[in-house]
């Protein structure tokens, strides 16, 4: 399988918050085939393509932006404010580390 750039697509691991695991009917982690360069936008595109019920739950319809009470962590760094098109760390692209989608600690 090759991506848009002609290179082999990456296999990215994604950890979902518990409520979205239940909604999608998946376990703690899902693996997604993502075209390179691997960005949060492309990971979310692949996630929503594989699990359409997650549409609108991570990115708002209309703006396409991250929902305010969600955050993205990778390699112990907060990627929430890096922009959806920033390339993710090599460890995530190579599957050694997951991209974590985390519900903000708000409201108890």
């Amino acid at each position, binding site marked *: 399988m090759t991506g848009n750039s002609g290179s082999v697509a990456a296999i990215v691991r994604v950890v979902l918050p518990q409520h979205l695991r239940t909604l999608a009917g998946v376990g703690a982690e899902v693996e997604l085939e993502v075209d390179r360069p691997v960005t949060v936008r492309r990971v979310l595109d692949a996630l929503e393509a594989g699990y359409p019920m997650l549409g609108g*739950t*991570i990115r708002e*319809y209309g703006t396409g932006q991250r*929902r305010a*009470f969600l955050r993205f962590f990778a390699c112990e760094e907060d990627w929430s404010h890096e922009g959806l098109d920033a390339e993710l760390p090599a460890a995530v692209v190579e599957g050694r580390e997951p991209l974590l989608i985390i519900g903000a600690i708000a409201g108890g």
Partner: protein
Amino acid sequence: MSGVRVLVGTKKGAFVLTADGARKDWQVSGPFFAGWEIYHVKGSPVDPNRIYASQSSGWFGQLIQRSDDGGATWAPVGNKFAYDGVPGTHQWYDGTPHPWEFKRVWHLEPSLTDAETVYAGVEDAALFKSTDGGANWEELAGLRGHGTGPHWQPGAGGMCLHTIIQDPANEERMYIAISAAGTFRTDDGGKNWKPINKGLVSNFMPDPTAEVGHCVHHVAMHRDRPDVLFMQKHWDVMRSDNAGDNWHEVSGNLPTDFGFAIDVHAHEPETLYVVPIKSDSEHFVPDGKLRVYRSRTGGNEWEPLTNGLPQENCYVNVLRDAMAVDQLDECGIYFGTSGGQVYASADAGDSWTPIVRDLPAVLSVEVQSFS
């Protein structure tokens, strides 16, 4: 064999309560969608096994769930609620313009004639319609676009379209209500709308009798008399005998005429139920007593119904969609509280028993009847 199915939406999930026609022994199932706010659950009158639920969360936004087997299993359907065109602005709490932003679905109203058709009332206020079982949603934009939208403002709970009533005698006629804009009617299937608020008086507005801006909390109709409407406004219980063209107050001897819920007996169109709440700043029942008030005269003359309800140290609220009546021969009444109790009366309100006492705060109660 007759029976009922009570559909309960709470702050942390949905519950389905079932009983036979005696309505004494109850089976409780749930929570469904545990941890999510379930603003409303309602079944199709055409196909009672078809049930729709509004599931939302501050973290993950809005979902719509659908069951085709009476609530045993559920599947998410469409959740894309896009306003038609550029949404524009409404008034913010301080009267300044504020952009229209979708927040959640407050109310789902399945069609009276087609199980695939369902309406959704949303915050910020707008009306959506699906004709494919909830897969796709389209705004009935004539409501928001008819001209007064820039003057609508949010109530304390947000600017929500919370009431949708279809006229069973006229497929083209429908009523909706918005906090805080008022009540509106369409006579052409949702294309065009007009405010129907003459007679309402709201002292929190610069012009207390303005065409729009009223905080209507809920509206109820008896299916055999669709031109007669009953309204629980922020303050005041109101009645219209001409499809909302004019309203007059019927609060009568209520201990307080603030409240949220209002409903009509299934077989007696002049028998109404409300739950008076102390005030707009004290959202609990007055005097520590949970009392449903019943009028058998279409308003003005009210009697408290207390048998089986707590009459001391009770400080719960009953929200606008948290009361329902069944259609069995002896009409049953149901309501849920902010304290998580769901009460049932199988004798038109004369006596009450709790079906459950300790659910999360109840947001909505609907009931399906089976003969």
